[in-house]
Every structure is written in structure tokens, then in C-alpha cells.
């Protein structure tokens, strides 16, 4: 059986290998602090310490074993100099940390930007310390749009205030004014997005930062869900109020389609076409998608999308008469 590093044993061992250096560096640290820092129950933590107590150098005599003392709620570890420094980061850990830091460093006006850039440089050197080129080998490309907008939006997020924005809707090809309760900023698909409640549509919406023409701050308090979780916006932008779109795609289009659109699930059909379910950006957006696919799409639901597509096709055709 292969052990995954995220399996139970791997996780526990990984935790022990970073907890011991921490206790050695901070003698007398409390059990409570350790438990919260390493995200374990106190009982499990004490079990970890009791287990380490039985380990050590070959010979396993009194002078060879790791010394662990729990005095009241204070923890001490001795005779374990080989665990003074933690195990180096795995490539996956380094990459995730580096990517997050690199993204945040592109956020204009971020208070900690200077510290973050210094940290990023040090981190970069460390993960490739004995390897000359790294991490020139990782590159995170972000287009940040108008920097002053992102600064204003961040301030509104910190203050918890409502904003008025002038937003360019690409599918409608026009600017609209909206009142938005900002919930968060999400970096995805190479852009920063503002997530929040759009009072114009009475719905949760994502606004691409580079399509915001103006931001006006207000004094009004924004309503933010207490359980707002940025993780919900991963991958396919699965907003709570989002609807799905189901369509069948030709074999030739199916190849690239999933790379470009927020496909939630897809299944092959007998004739080589594929049925795909995706998060809809609204009927208007879905209608433009149907037009772009032309003969490569069939069986679109909901029907309201086809209605919109037919009406839009008429408007477009008028431009060409």
C-alpha cells in the first residue's frame, strides 16, 4: 500500500517533524498553544509527545532517547538536536505558498506588500538554495487593472462599507452603474475579481477589476454574510445564486471547451458529442456562448437561453444587412 503524504500517518508524522523543532526553539511552550498552532486536539498532541518519548538513536539507552517533559501544561523536549530544524518544504508546499504570496503581491495598495515581496524573495531562494535557477522556474501572471480601484475596494472591504461602481458588462457591451456590498477579492484566471452583492440585480456577482471604470466610496455599511468563504469561488466561480447551463458540444469543440469555460461536469454521448454542465453567467452570457459555438452546440437548457440567443441573433444580423 502506498502512503499518501496527506494520509493519516503522513499527516501525523509531518506534524511531529515540525512540532518538535518548534518546542525545541520555544522551551516551555504551553500545550494549548501547540494544539492551536498545529491544529490538533490536546489529547492527540499529548499522545504525539508520548510516542516521541520512545524514539531515539540506535542503542536506545537512556542517553539515546528523546527526552520529553510535560510540566503542568509546559512542554520541553531535549536530546533531539537532529530535530532542531524542520524538514524542508515539499515542492507542493513551496509552490502553493509561493503562488499565494505572488498573487497577493500584485494587489495594489496592500498594506503588507513590502514585507511580502521581501519574504517572497527569501522564500524563492530557499526553495532553490542548492539549485541555481529556481524559482525563476515559477511564474504567476496577473493582470491587475486600474490600481487605484483595487486600493479603494480594499479600503471598502476593511471598513465594511458599500461602494458605487461603474462597470463595463462585456456581454452587453455597455457601462452600467451599480451599488455593491463588497465581500472579497478573488484572484482567478489571471485577473482580480470583486465579489459581492449587486443591488442592481439583487444577486451575488463577480466583477472583473479591469472592467470597473469608476469606484465611489460611500459611508453606508455593507452587509456581508458572516460565513463568507472565498474558497467557494474556486475553479468554476460557484456562487450561491448561480444557475447552471446544460448543453451538448461537438467532438471537435469538446476538446478545448473545458479549458475555457467553467464546466462543472461532463459526460460523453454515444455519437461522440459531449454533454456539459456549466455555471452560467446569466442568459445573456449563455446566449453569446451559444452563438460563438455555432454549429458545434445543440440541446441547450434552459430554453430561456435559446430565446435570448434568437433575439440577440436578430439584433446582430441587423448590423450586417
Amino acid at each position, binding site marked *: 500500500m502506498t502512503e499518501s503524504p*496527506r494520509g493519516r500517518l503522513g499527516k501525523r508524522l509531518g506534524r511531529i517533524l515540525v512540532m518538535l523543532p518548534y518546542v525545541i526553539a520555544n522551551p516551555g511552550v504551553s500545550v494549548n498553544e501547540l494544539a492551536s498552532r498545529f491544529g490538533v486536539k490536546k489529547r492527540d498532541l499529548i499522545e504525539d509527545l508520548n510516542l516521541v518519548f520512545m524514539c531515539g538513536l540506535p542503542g536506545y539507552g537512556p542517553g539515546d532517547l528523546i527526552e520529553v517533559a510535560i510540566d503542568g501544561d509546559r512542554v520541553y523536549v531535549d536530546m533531539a538536536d537532529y530535530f532542531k530544524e524542520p524538514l524542508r518544504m515539499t515542492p507542493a508546499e513551496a509552490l502553493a505558498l509561493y503562488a499565494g504570496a505572488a498573487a497577493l503581491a500584485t494587489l495594489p495598495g496592500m498594506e503588507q506588500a513590502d514585507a511580502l515581496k521581501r519574504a517572497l524573495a527569501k522564500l524563492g531562494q530557499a526553495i532553490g538554495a542548492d539549485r541555481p535557477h529556481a524559482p525563476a522556474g*515559477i511564474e504567476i*501572471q496577473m493582470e491587475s487593472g486600474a490600481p487605484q480601484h483595487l486600493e479603494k475596494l480594499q479600503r471598502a472591504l476593511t471598513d465594511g462599507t458599500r461602494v458605487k461602481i461603474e462597470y463595463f458588462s462585456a456581454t452587453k457591451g455597455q457601462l452600467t452603474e451599480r451599488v455593491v456590498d463588497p465581500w472579497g477579492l478573488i*484572484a482567478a484566471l489571471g485577473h482580480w475579481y470583486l465579489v459581492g452583492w449587486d443591488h442592481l440585480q439583487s444577486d451575488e456577482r463577480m466583477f472583473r477589476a479591469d472592467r470597473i471604470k469608476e469606484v465611489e466610496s460611500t459611508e453606508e455599511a455593507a452587509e456581508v454574510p458572516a460565513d463568507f468563504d472565498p474558497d467557494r469561488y474556486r475553479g468554476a466561480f460557484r456562487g450561491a445564486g448561480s444557475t447552471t447551463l446544460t448543453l451538448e458540444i461537438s467532438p471537435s469543440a469538446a476538446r478545448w471547451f473545458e*479549458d475555457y469555460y467553467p464546466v462543472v461536469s461532463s459526460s460523453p454521448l454515444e455519437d461522440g458529442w459531449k454533454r456539459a454542465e456549466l455555471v452560467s453567467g446569466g442568459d445573456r452570457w449563455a446566449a453569446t456562448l451559444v452563438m460563438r459555438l455555432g454549429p458545434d452546440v445543440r440541446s441547450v437548457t434552459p430554453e430561456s437561453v435559446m430565446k435570448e440567443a434568437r433575439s440577440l441573433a436578430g439584433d*446582430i444580423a441587423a448590423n450586417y444587412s
Partner: protein
Amino acid sequence: MRRIERLINLIIALLETRLPLTADDIRTKIAGYDQPSFDAFRRAFERDKEALRAMGVPLVVKKIDPLDEHSDGYIIPKDRYYLPQLDLEPDELAALRIATEAVLGSGQEAASGWLKLSVDATAAPLEGPRVVWGADFDTDQPILGPLYEAQLERRPVRFTYLPASGDESVRTVEPYGLVNRRGHWYLVGRDVDRSAERSFRLSRVRGRVEALEGSYEIPACFDAESHLPQDAWEIGEEPVSAVLRFNSSMRWWIEQNMPALDTKEAPQGALDVTLTVANVDALVSWVLGFGSSVAILAPAAARDRVLQRLQPLLEGRS
């Protein structure tokens, strides 16, 4: 003795030994390897090696006697086990902590990486400010870690690749760089069989990535950007000149996105934009994305293509 204790003992012994330990040494000296038969020991030891490597513990095999094929010795080199000293200032550590909060998907990887960095910092804050950021870089894609590891170790990789057009084939690549562009990961490197630098979109890699023996150098003048795919309408055979009419509501967007292009005023505040296009289909698709706010004036072939795409919908109206 539980397996986890045996693993800890193995790490300690292999870190502290000056000379590589043979399988026999390990069996007789390290607590937990007292299996009744050599075969049972061997199986346990193989599993343990695999578990440690999966966690990133650098367990190295060295020949003890260069003349004897069967004289494998095992050691964990200290310089490869320990995290190098980063000397992060408290504010740098705090900023990185915020960054770990922002990582969507691989938050656990980022967080365990951060814990390793913060060992020496007593006052390192555990709680960041209210989480209002998220960064989605698809860093939990399972082949990303192995590719990055191979790149760090300068080992060629082999994988099955399905290009956007063409057939699936097995590629051998020397990884030069990993780029996240518009939210997608690309591996840029030298395709060994084609003897040329290429980019590979990770979502088109089928199955697992295998790291091969061998080594390579990354050319000093290597530039990942020049090997990444361009905008769709820039890829094609014969570039043609196209004229697009944007209606007045699109003016702000044009100023933001196409400032360098050749523009001309048109009736009712519309703007005619001339640009060079190499792929008419990609242009048509892009223009349709704007609904009726943009129309193609030239070339005629592109206008026909628009009407062709609309035809099924226009028929459906009657």
C-alpha cells in the same frame, strides 16, 4: 512498536549516521525492524522508504562497495533534509501568513509550508485579518508537485499529452519553467524528441508524470514567454486586415484595452478600429461575445462567417 515510531527511529538513524547503513544494519540496529524473517523485514522497509519519500524526506541510496552491486547503503543527507535558514523578519512571516490564507484549494499545503517557516518565531501570529482575499491558481493539480520537483532536480519527465489539435502522444520533456497564465498552468521546456522548446498546458496532460534518470541545463537566455501560446486570433496562416465597428457604449473599453490601435470616428459616436488578424474564426467568435455592440465591416469573409453562425438561430425564430 507502532509503525510511526519505527519511521521516526529510521529518520533519526539515517540522519545521524556518518556512513550509509545497509539493510542488515537497519534490521539489526534500528528499533522496529525485528520482523521474524528477512522477507518480512524487506517488505516493511520498502513501505517505509516509500512513505518517507512521499513526505519529502530525502532518503538516498549509495553504493558502499563500488565493486559490489548488492551493497546498497541508505542515508538522509542533512543538507537536503533541513529547511535552509530563511531569516524571515516578523513582518515578512506575518505577510506570508496572510498569503497562506489567500490560497484557495491548496490551503493545507501552503499552511503546512508556513508552519515549517515559522518554527523559530515565537510571536508569529496564527490569526490573520478577516479573510477577504482568495487566490485560485489550481495549485492542487496533482501533477504540479511532481513536475516542479523534477524541474528543481533537473530531471527530464515523460507524460502522455493531448494537444489542442492532433493526436495523443508520449512526450519526453526537460522542464525549464512553470507558468500560470490566465489561471492555467503551462510547462515550458525542451521537447527531447522534437529537439525544440515547447509549452504544454497541464490540463492536457493525461495521467501521471514520470521523472526519468538524467540531467540537463537550462539555457541562460531561456525566455518562457516566447513559447507560450498567443491570443487565438494571432495564430494562423495569413494575417489579414480587419475593420470592426464598436458602438458608442464600447468606447471606454476600447480606450482601456486597445489603446494602440488605429481608430476612426464613425456615425452616432461609433468607432471603427482596424487590426491585423490571422485567424478569422477566432475573430468571429470574439466579436460575437460582445453581442450586437460590435460588428465586423471587413473582410467580407468574416462577415459571411458571422451570418453562417447565426443562421440556425435566425431560422429558429420564424
